[in-house]
């Protein structure tokens, strides 16, 4: 009982002139997926969009992988990049562990809910939702973040939760005050649900929740978001594992590729200007988003 080879017209065109001549075997497909994941992890880390967000479209659209396997493999790679980068971020001293841990109550519960919803939705609906989230991320990435005035008022709830802290700048330690805890907490629940539903890190939404709603300084928001992504993804991973979404043969090249790619990206990041790269990557993401929505609506996924 052998299932048909993946809808790999795309790869076959790459490898041979005649699509009927042969189909790719597991070794070739694994290497191609590894290369694709490496590139996605590299670009995702350079642009700050994260590699995870393009892996699922890549696997489903180009390699014809079932979206549930794709989501499972991506989720695993999200944990790898988050945990792998943590050591580097900690050195910079920006992470606010209390804000992160408190908001993780919202993201982990959201992730379990999202992963449970994913099991009940047809694959085509997941593809459409994925496309919409992808479009929004592309829009957010291409848009410069608006300047924000620091908040110097203490907020009762934030003080009670010991959120106010300080972070190192070139001019010494800068203290900051946090507010908007209920809004941030609610947004984090949404971020967690999307993460569990789509197998992504939802780093962009996490940063918005902290940076915009809670007035956490941007650098603290991004590093704290990275810390939270791994824990959120681990919460979904348990559910995915139970549902049989995590296929070792597929997750292996994705995880190893994205991890290596993002580590390389972090090395290069320090000496690259990323504005134009962000725009190009944003455009690629937008095209993938439209494809996902189209394939979802026409029932091809």
């Amino acid at each position, binding site marked *: 009982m*052998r*299932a*048909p*080879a*993946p809808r790999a017209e795309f790869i076959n065109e790459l490898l041979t002139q005649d699509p009927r001549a042969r189909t790719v*075997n*597991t*070794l070739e*497909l*694994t290497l191609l997926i590894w290369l694709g994941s490496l590139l996605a992890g590299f670009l995702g880390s350079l642009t700050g969009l994260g590699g995870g967000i393009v892996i699922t479209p890549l696997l489903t659209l180009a390699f*014809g*992988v*079932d979206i*549930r*396997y794709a989501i499972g493999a991506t989720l*695993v790679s999200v*944990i*790898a990049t*988050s*945990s*792998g980068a*943590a*050591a*580097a*971020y*900690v050195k910079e001293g920006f992470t606010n*562990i*209390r804000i992160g*841990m*408190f908001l*993780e*109550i919202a993201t*982990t*519960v959201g992730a*379990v809910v999202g*992963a*449970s919803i994913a099991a009940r939705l047809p694959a085509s609906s997941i593809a459409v939702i994925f496309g919409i989230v992808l479009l929004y991320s592309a829009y957010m990435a291409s848009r410069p973040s608006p300047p924000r005035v620091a908040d110097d008022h203490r907020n009762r709830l934030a003080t009670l939760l*010991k959120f106010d802290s300080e972070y190192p700048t070139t001019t010494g330690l800068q203290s900051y005050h946090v507010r908007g805890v209920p809004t941030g907490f609610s947004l984090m629940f949404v971020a967690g649900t999307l993460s569990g539903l789509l197998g992504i890190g939802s780093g962009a939404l996490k940063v918005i929740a902290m940076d915009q709603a809670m007035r956490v300084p941007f650098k603290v928001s991004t590093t704290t978001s990275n810390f939270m992504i*791994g*824990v959120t*993804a*681990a*919460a979904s*991973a*348990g*559910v995915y*594992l*139970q*549902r*049989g*979404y*995590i*296929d*070792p*043969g597929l*997750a*292996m*090249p994705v*995880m*190893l590729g994205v991890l290596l790619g993002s580590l390389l990206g972090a090395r290069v990041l320090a000496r690259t200007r990323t504005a134009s790269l962000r725009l190009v990557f944003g455009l690629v993401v937008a095209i993938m988003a439209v494809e996902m929505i189209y394939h979802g609506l026409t029932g091809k996924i």
Partner: protein
Amino acid sequence: MNKPATRWTDQRVETIIGNLLRAGVLLAAAVVALGGVIFLVRHGCTMPQYARFVGEPFELRTVSGIVRRAASFRGRNIIQLGLLLLIATPVARVAFSVVAFALERDRLYVGVTLIVLAVLLFSLAGGHV
């Protein structure tokens, strides 16, 4: 071990946790790579079957099943063990934070962290809503 004068600051705890996480990820990646080599040597020439969702066999879906199967030295089982190690790194981080907050005598955050840990363990134990 620790001098009484040594203070458990957030920064110090974070540095330890960061290194712990990196070690966990590298270990997981090594196990996954080992399993991957075995998997590809044995199954590299077969046709891939990712286009149609059938789900993983039941023994590769639970923590206990994966741990039991890992000793069989099949490529897929070893990869799955590596992935489980990877999933465990953030869980270990949260567990470590419980201890760290306890050492800082921060009861509020011991509670907060325990809630997060409970959700994670609930999920890994196969719970879903």
